[in-house]
C-alpha cells in the first residue's frame, strides 16, 4: 500500500466544511463541467424522443424530428396508451419483473453463499456449471423450452416467464455475489461461529447485511433487465405463430393450386389460394373482416375487424 496513516504527515487542515484537499479549484470546476456535458450527451437521444412525443403528427411531418415543439400535445401519448392497453401491459410487466427479481436474488444469495463461503471442494467447477446459464446464447434455448412449457401446460403464462428469466439471471448474481463474498474477512465469520450462530443465522444476520449494496444493485439490475426484456417481443410467441402458419400451409395448400390476388379495397393486401384467403391490413385503421372462418391471425382481432399491421388467414 502507498501509505500508512500513522506515519502520514498531516497536510490537510480539518476546519469546517470541505478539507483543503477537496476545494473547488478552477480545475475542479472544469472537471465538473466536463462530466456534466458528458452526462447530458448520454441522455440526448432520450431528450429528443421526449421532445417529439409532445408534437402533433402534422407538426412532426412539417418540421421534422429535430425542431422544437410549438406546444405540448399529449394526444399521441394518450392514444398510444389506450390503443395498446399500456396499463395492462405495464401491470403485467411489473408483476413479471418483480417475480423474476425475487426469484433471481434468492437463488443468487443461496447459491453464492454455498460457493463463496462454503469453500466446497471443486467450487470453481460448481461456479462454472452455473455460469453456463449465462454463457449459453438464449436462442439455443427457445425451441426446447417452448416444447417443455407446452408439455406441462405453462406455455405463455407469467409463471413460466418468471421461472425462466429468474433462473437465467441468477447466474450473473451467483457469479457477482460469490466473487464479492470472498472478500468478507474470515475473522468476522469466525467470531459469529464462536458466538454459536448457525449457517442460516450467519447468512441472514451477517452476510446479507454486509453484501447489502451489491444485493441492491443486483435486484435493480434483475428488475430492469426483466422489464426491458418483457417489453420486447416475446420470441416464443412469435415462434408459436410461425409454427401455426407453417402447419396451415402444409395442411391447406395442395401443390399446384394457383395463388390469386384479390382486391378488397385500399390498405388491404389479399391473396386467395384454393379456399383459403390471406388478408393483411397495411393501413392505419381497422377494416371489417371478410366472411369466413378465421384460421389464424398475427394479432388479436378486434370485434370482427382486422386491426392495422395484422394479417388474417381465413377459410371461406
Amino acid at each position: 500500500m502507498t501509505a500508512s496513516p500513522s506515519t502520514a504527515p498531516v497536510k490537510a487542515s480539518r476546519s469546517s466544511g470541505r478539507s483543503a484537499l477537496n476545494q473547488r479549484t478552477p480545475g475542479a470546476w472544469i472537471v465538473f463541467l466536463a462530466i456534466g456535458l458528458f452526462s447530458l450527451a448520454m441522455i440526448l437521444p432520450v431528450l429528443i424522443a421526449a421532445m417529439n412525443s409532445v408534437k402533433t403528427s402534422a407538426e412532426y411531418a412539417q418540421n421534422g424530428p429535430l425542431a422544437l415543439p410549438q406546444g405540448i400535445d399529449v394526444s399521441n401519448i394518450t392514444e398510444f396508451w389506450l390503443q395498446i392497453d399500456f396499463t395492462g401491459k405495464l401491470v403485467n410487466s411489473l408483476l413479471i419483473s418483480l417475480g423474476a427479481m425475487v426469484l433471481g436474488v434468492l437463488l443468487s444469495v443461496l447459491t453464492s453463499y454455498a460457493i463463496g463461503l462454503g469453500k466446497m471442494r471443486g467450487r470453481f467447477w460448481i461456479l462454472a456449471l452455473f455460469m453456463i446459464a449465462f454463457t449459453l446464447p438464449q436462442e439455443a434455448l427457445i425451441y426446447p423450452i417452448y416444447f417443455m412449457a407446452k408439455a406441462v401446460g405453462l406455455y405463455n403464462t407469467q409463471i413460466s416467464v418468471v421461472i425462466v428469466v429468474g433462473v437465467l439471471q441468477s447466474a450473473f448474481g451467483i457469479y457477482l455475489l460469490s466473487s464479492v463474498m470472498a472478500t468478507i474477512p474470515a475473522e468476522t465469520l469466525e467470531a459469529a461461529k464462536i458466538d454459536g450462530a448457525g449457517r442460516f443465522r450467519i447468512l441472514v444476520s451477517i452476510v446479507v447485511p454486509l453484501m447489502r449494496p451489491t444485493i441492491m444493485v443486483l435486484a435493480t439490475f434483475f428488475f430492469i433487465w426483466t422489464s426491458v426484456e418483457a417489453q420486447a417481443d416475446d420470441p416464443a410467441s412469435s415462434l408459436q405463430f410461425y409454427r401455426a402458419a407453417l402447419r396451415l400451409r402444409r395442411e391447406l395448400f395442395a401443390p399446384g393450386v394457383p395463388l390469386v390476388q384479390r382486391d378488397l379495397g385500399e390498405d388491404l393486401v389479399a391473396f386467395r389460394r384454393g379456399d383459403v384467403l390471406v388478408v393483411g391490413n397495411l393501413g392505419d385503421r381497422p377494416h371489417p373482416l371478410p366472411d369466413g372462418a378465421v384460421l389464424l391471425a398475427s394479432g388479436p382481432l378486434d370485434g370482427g375487424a382486422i386491426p392495422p399491421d395484422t394479417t388474417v388467414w381465413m377459410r371461406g
Partner: protein
Amino acid sequence: MESRRFIPYLIPGILGLMLIVIIPATANLGLSLTSWNGVGQPTFVGLTNYSTLLQDKIFWQSFGNSIAIIIAMAIIPTFLGLFLSAVLFDYIAPRFGSGSSSASRAMIYLPQIIPIAVAGVLWGFILQPQTGLLNTVLRTFGLDGLAQNWLGDPKLALSTLMVVLVWLQLGYTVVVFMAGMSRVDPSLHEAASLDGAGWMRRFREVTVVTLKPEIAVVLLTTTVSALKVFAPIYVLTSGGPGNATTVPSYFAYYQFFTTMKVGYGAAISTVLAVVITVIALAILSYQNRSADA
C-alpha cells in the same frame, strides 16, 4: 466435512439450472444433428450441419465482427467506466456533493433502462442520413463532407454500431464500479491523499487494486454479453448492410426463424455456446488464481 453442510443451499439453484438450462441445451445439441424446418419430424443428418458451418463464410465473418463488438461492449466500457466512476466517486462527490455524482450516474445509466426497441428508434432520429440530427448539425456548420450514411454504408456501419453499443453499455459498468467503491474503506483513500498521493496515483494504486473483483466480474460479463449480443443488432441494422454487422447470435436467429433451418441454427448456437463458455472459463480461472494468490 464442514463444507458439505452447505449443500442444501445449492439445491434450489441446481434444480433451476437443470430445468431451464441443462436439459434444453442438451435438446438443442440433439437438434443440431438434424435437418428440421420447425414442424413435423426432424431427420437425423449427423454432423452435416457442422461441416457446412465450417465452410460458411458468413459464419466466420460474424465471428470477426464479434471482436469489434467485444471492444465496444467490454473493453471500452470497462476502462472508461472505471475512470468515470472514480472521478464521480472521489473527485466530484467530495467537492460538489454526492447529489451531483448520483445525478450523473443516473444519466449515464439511463440507456440501460430504456427498451432496446425504443433505443433503436432514438438512434434512428440521430443517424438518419437525410434528416437525422447528426448530419443536420454537420451541415449547419458547413461540414457537409463529413455527413455520412452512418448505418447504411458497409464501411461505416460497424463503427457506428460500436459507438451506440458503448452508449448502451457504459451505465452498467459505472453502476457496478460505484457500488464497489462504496464497499472500499474510505480511510484508505484518505491515508493515501494525506501521504501526498495525487488523484491519478490514488486511482491506479488504491481504486483499481481494491476493485479487482468487480473489474473481473465486469470484464467477464461484458465479454460474454458482447459475444451473445442480439437485440441491438436486430433493431439497428439487422446484420446489414449486406452482412457488414452480422454477429453469430443474429446469424443463428436468422436460420431459426427466417430460413427455418432449425438444425443449422441449433448447430450455430451450439458452437457459439462452446466458444463463449471456453472464454468465460478462461477468465474465471484467471480470476480464481489471482484471488487465491
